[in-house]
């Protein structure tokens, strides 16, 4: 019942705060990686270069689907902004269901920009079905398709190092986030700006994807404080010998 209560409270908070955030402007702290992402988006359109968005190997049928869905929300926004560029963005996925949604999301971005006729189905790709196979295929895109920035957001393990190394070799900007601890440490060590932990889920809010994204950050903050209070309360109760 505790789980159901958490879900219901979170849902109520998300709904209420979304309505409230529609009327008030978002006030977000600066995250260097996301500032860089904003700048990279603008530069790629001006330069006529391509962005490569890697969504990782997260399957939508298990717990790793959350990061994949966050990546798709970001992709939707990037696709809309870069659809009229000379070199439109390319997205890659390492899971077949995620690959299908990648194509659908890209198409939705083109539709929203009013240029659906420019959409090419091969701009959303499944490059491999195992983590290393996927990384090898994604490296190929970044090296051969006039890519100016690699944005990797999703479920990545240590294989992310292969992508960062390929980006480094070709002087391609790299922005990375993973929901996996090993992936996060690799990205921290090998990229200039990486997103740590729940920052992965903030990309939509920072790219202006809507009030619901900003509201979900506020809900996360509220829930985090509740977790902190619960941890401290539990420790205090244990200290006084009540449990």
């Amino acid at each position, binding site marked *: 019942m505790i789980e*159901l209560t958490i879900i219901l409270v979170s*849902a109520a908070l998300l709904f209420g705060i979304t309505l409230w955030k529609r009327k008030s402007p978002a006030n977000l702290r600066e995250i260097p990686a996301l500032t860089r992402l904003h700048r990279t988006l603008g530069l790629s359109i001006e330069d006529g270069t391509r962005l490569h968005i890697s969504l990782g190997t997260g399957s939508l049928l298990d717990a790793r689907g959350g990061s994949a869905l966050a990546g798709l929300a970001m992709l*939707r926004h990037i696709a809309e902004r870069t659809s009229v560029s000379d070199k439109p963005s390319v997205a890659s996925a390492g899971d077949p269901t995620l*690959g299908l949604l990648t194509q659908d999301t890209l198409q939705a971005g083109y539709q929203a920009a009013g240029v659906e006729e420019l959409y090419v189905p*091969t701009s959303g790709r*499944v490059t491999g079905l195992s983590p290393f196979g996927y*990384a090898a295929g994604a490296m190929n895109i970044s090296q051969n398709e006039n890519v100016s920035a690699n944005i990797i957001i999703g479920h990545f393990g240590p294989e992310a190092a292969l992508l960062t190394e390929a980006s480094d070799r070709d002087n391609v900007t790299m922005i990375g986030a993973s929901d996996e601890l090993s992936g996060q440490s690799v990205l921290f060590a*090998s990229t200039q700006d990486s997103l740590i932990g729940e920052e992965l*889920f903030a990309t939509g809010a920072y790219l202006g994807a809507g009030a619901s994204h900003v509201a979900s950050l506020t809900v996360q903050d509220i829930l*985090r404080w509740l977790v902190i209070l619960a941890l401290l309360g539990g420790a205090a109760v244990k200290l006084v010998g009540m449990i």
Partner: protein
Amino acid sequence: MRIFTAVVAIAAGILILGGYFFPAFEGMQALLLNWAVILAGAAALVGIFNLVSVHTDKIRRQEKGSVYSALLLISLVATFLFAMILRPNHATMKIVLSGIIIPVEASLMGLLTISLLYAAVRLLRRRADLTSIIFLVTAALLILGSATLPFGNMPVLGTFVGPWITQVLALGGARGILIGVALGTLTTGLRVLFGADRPYGGN
């Protein structure tokens, strides 16, 4: 159509979520999850067709690296045909798996070691701040602490500092990050359930 897909997706999401809390929904949850697994299998085939069309396009346009695309397509078709004729459990197919795919992935893992070492060496040049210094010092201490030496474990580092870092500091930090990721996953899932994010059928 968009409204219809949203209604179907939200209803499916609520039924599957309900199955975890209410026994009445369990049968429906199992049925929907089975359908999802079957659809995921079909999606794998679509993914392979996508891979084929991307690389065929590359060869047709004679793009950079099209030789590798040709090699990939030949290997794909050959493996697919042999697997269809011999069946996936045949000894030859097992040799293809254990003699080609596993060694290639292992060699990529080997490359990874060098890449990570190189990244660690260049970390301070890329980002000279306190967190980078702490990261490198911690990594160095742990590597030294776990090094196999002729006289056994490194005193203090291997017996006290290393275990304390991994069991107390790193474990606490990892749990903090995982709680953050879990909260992010929860709100992202709720957004999809509300239909605020629709990664299916447009937005």
